[in-house]
């Protein structure tokens, strides 16, 4: 879990270095991640964890926080 969170944070920092994703805020509502960022993020996470996140799960609410993203990854088979 901790490793997953760290990996997600590292991926976010690589893709969107202009934002601080350690903040306890809703990343979507704060405008830190838009739909094209989601595409980049999903693509990187798929590659990093050797999974394919279900297209139906690629909705903004699943990317609103680090914990949401970790849950999304676990539900899509990461860390098994």
């Amino acid at each position, binding site marked *: 879990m901790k490793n997953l969170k760290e990996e997600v944070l590292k991926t976010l920092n690589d893709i969107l270095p202009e934002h601080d994703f350690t903040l306890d805020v809703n990343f979507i509502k704060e405008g830190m991640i*838009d*739909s*094209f960022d989601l*595409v*980049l993020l999903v*693509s990187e996470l798929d590659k990093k964890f050797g999974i*394919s996140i*279900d*297209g*139906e799960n*690629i*909705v*903004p609410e699943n990317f609103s926080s680090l914990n949401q993203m970790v849950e999304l990854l676990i539900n899509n088979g990461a860390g098994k």
Partner: protein
Amino acid sequence: MNLTFKNKEITGILTVLPSKEVRFEDEMENYPFSVETSLKLKTIMGFEKRRIVEDGVCASDLCIFGLSYLFDNKLLNKEDIDALILVTQTPDYIVPPTSNVIQGRFGLKEDMICMDINQGCTGFVLGLMQAFLLLDQESIHKVVLMNADVLSRKVSRKDRNSNPLIGDGASITIVERSEINNMIYANIKMDGKRAFAIHIPAGGARKPSCPETAIVEMDDIGNMRSQDNLVMKGDEVFMFAQKDVPPMIVSLLDFSNQTKDMVDYFMFHQPNKFMLNKLADKLGIPRDKMPSNVVENLGNSSGVSIPISMTYNLGNRLINERLNLCLAGFGAGLNWASMILEVGNLNFNGMIFF
């Protein structure tokens, strides 16, 4: 809605692509991305290059060019055409039907049917359905199905949702009764409640184009477009494709009593590479059985993308052998349709450039 068709087949496909090629890297400055982000998106989404028409070129120009090629090369006889279907979202005129304009241009016989159908990305599958239905009439032996769109003319150059992907093109598909005792399985669904997920606000009777509708404004994510331009709500369309297309394919396979392994290729409409790869993964279909290279190299030409993929990817194979194909189109409407049919031993299957 499940549909079946018997003893019908495609006997030839010709696709017509514009000679003008636009490269994403030459347009990157139009979009509010960093260069690094743009280059990453290029690979993931398939923003590479696309074919678009020059200013003033219409859908009928591409169709006439293609039909002339077929007549000149004796691949099609004018007098054999009993029906001319044109599926397009970009007709030359509101009145008359563009199919009639094409009929008149070639002086085709009066004893025939001309029909324009306003459909987008579902247009090839729906056009085939219409062609098969017409062929149930005793007096109709040969249907020429034309799919053509010049949507680049309706897309703002500064709309990152649509412009990096949009392509133009036309296809001419000959559809006839088959002597092979074959069975074609199809299904189609439509949901007008989501009609405005893809639309052009102005230009019809509801809101005629005028100087005000041509004013370019910025939307909430930085796209610049006017009301005369195509609007595609990317998130909504992506979710539609991921949610509604896979069950349609599962249902069609079940209806046709076939498994995924029995299908040689899944020739899907190609909106963007990311969306197609996600669909392939979700359906458990190897990505090489669902080509996504048309949008990358030629652009998303709406209802023309499936026949382009059939000529671009399967070329001579569809002349020399028969393949079991699953076609699927999904888009404006919102509509989604699929079809499993054998295609092969075609009289021609090629591409020409306008």
